[in-house]
């Protein structure tokens, strides 16, 4: 898998009211990589994600996956949203099976994959529950299982834990990290949470707002075998603080 964005810009509106939201974004990522986009809210993160998902078209520039231009949404790029991530009228298992039914797989295959991916996210016992009976963290795990069940080449996560309580968010981050280590998924994560990006991603692109543009890309190198410990380690905290200062600087011209 290779995702390649080349000079991608996006503006909304026409003529004088047009506003540039993304300004010449270029980057590539390969199979198995965990890449994060870090930016404050309004910096165009979701817009970028929608372009990669194929839900929207760029105003200029090009996006491609494995050399094929991205034109429309497809199961090869699975997406998890922050809100309304599950179908509230379907049980957890039915939610996971949803995409497989859309792809018209045969019944046995659907049943097997659903059971398997519910187990992958640790929710086999909750298969028959409606989303409203699940906690926010569980709901996002089901949404991730549903995306994974469609066997995407690339998983797109748009602030998937943004609406969760701090503690649940931490455990979900550990869950996601563990999932990535186990499965070798390619993950593109969008977040405004510096700690989250630093903990999980191998590569971080920092997005400055108005218009959204990559101001710096950094490669993260630390031992991810113990996230809870890493969170509190000195080098990590220093790096996090430096990044926070840098992010504040980007928002300064606004104030």
């Amino acid at each position: 898998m290779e995702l390649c964005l080349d000079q991608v810009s996006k503006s909304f509106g026409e003529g004088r009211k047009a506003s540039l939201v993304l300004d010449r974004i270029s980057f590539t990522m390969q199979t198995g990589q965990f890449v994060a986009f870090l930016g404050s809210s309004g910096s165009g993160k979701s817009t970028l994600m929608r372009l990669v998902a194929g839900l929207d078209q760029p105003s200029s520039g090009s996006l491609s996956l494995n050399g094929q231009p991205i034109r429309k949404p497809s199961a090869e790029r699975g997406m998890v949203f922050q809100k309304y991530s599950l179908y509230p009228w379907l049980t957890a298992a039915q939610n996971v099976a949803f995409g497989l039914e859309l792809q018209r797989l045969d019944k046995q295959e659907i049943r097997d994959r659903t059971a398997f991916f519910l187990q992958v996210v640790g929710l086999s016992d909750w298969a028959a529950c409606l989303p409203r009976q699940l906690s926010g963290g569980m709901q996002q795990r089901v949404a991730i299982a549903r995306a994974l069940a469609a066997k995407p080449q690339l998983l797109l996560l748009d602030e998937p834990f943004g609406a969760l309580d701090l503690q649940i968010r931490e455990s979900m981050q550990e869950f996601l990290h563990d999932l990535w280590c186990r499965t070798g998924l390619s993950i593109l994560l969008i977040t405004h949470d510096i700690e989250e990006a630093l903990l999980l991603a191998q590569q971080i692109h920092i997005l400055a707002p108005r218009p959204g543009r990559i101001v710096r890309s950094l490669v993260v190198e630390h031992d991810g075998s113990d996230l809870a410990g890493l969170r509190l380690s000195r080098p990590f905290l220093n790096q996090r603080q430096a990044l926070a200062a840098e992010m504040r600087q980007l928002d300064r011209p606004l104030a």
Partner: protein
Amino acid sequence: MPSLNLPLKRQLQTLLLKPWALGLSGLILLFGLWAAVAAAAVVDPLFLPSPWAVLAAGQQELAAGQLWTDIAASLMRVLGGFGLSALVALPLGIAMGSSTTICRLLEPLLALLRYMPAPAFIPLLIIYFGLGELPKILLIFIGTLFFNALMIMDAVKFVPPELLETALTLGGHRSDLLTRVIAPCIAPQVLDAYRINMAAAWNLVIVAELVAADAGLGKRISLAQRFLRTDQIFLGLIVIGLIGLLIDLGFRFLMRRSCAWAN
């Protein structure tokens, strides 16, 4: 004996805390008041018939088979007119909710028609279709179509775009969205719209029958007026109210059964 009284009081208290308890006591209170005023004979029974007079009128109409004929006549008109309206409003509302073009084309028109009181169409309908069943059914149809369609349109517009887009990123086609996402998502609101607008249909059938009909609950009331039979008028009103309530409860039941997720 306070030791015996206490649990009784408790029981009464917990009973009163039930959601339906207060509503029921209000009803009982009203009936009690009615019976008391009627028994005291302070109001001319011509204006205020006693509950037992109304009951007697009911027994009489039941025995003559009149009540069932009237109920059936009114019910058939409501079912015909409202059924037609529900059937047309569903695709219309969905089309308006999912296509900006169709919405822009039709919304001002529907909004205008909505403000024309349906009963004002009665003279036209009578001129076009005479005094039979068709004008009554059509009256209910036009009187509820626009409300149904606009409410369904709103429901479709409020389907979270994330739910639609998730389906697309899972390998769904645009043609899957209507049946797999939009339909189940709006089902509770559609049922609720039908429940609310059913009340309007029930009002309109009575209005139509007051003008011209050979049977029906509204017809019975207007006949009773001619003979100063206030007991029959009261009976008609109560039966109309009860049937309306039953239909409402029916919709609520349907909703609870089929859309448990939305409660």
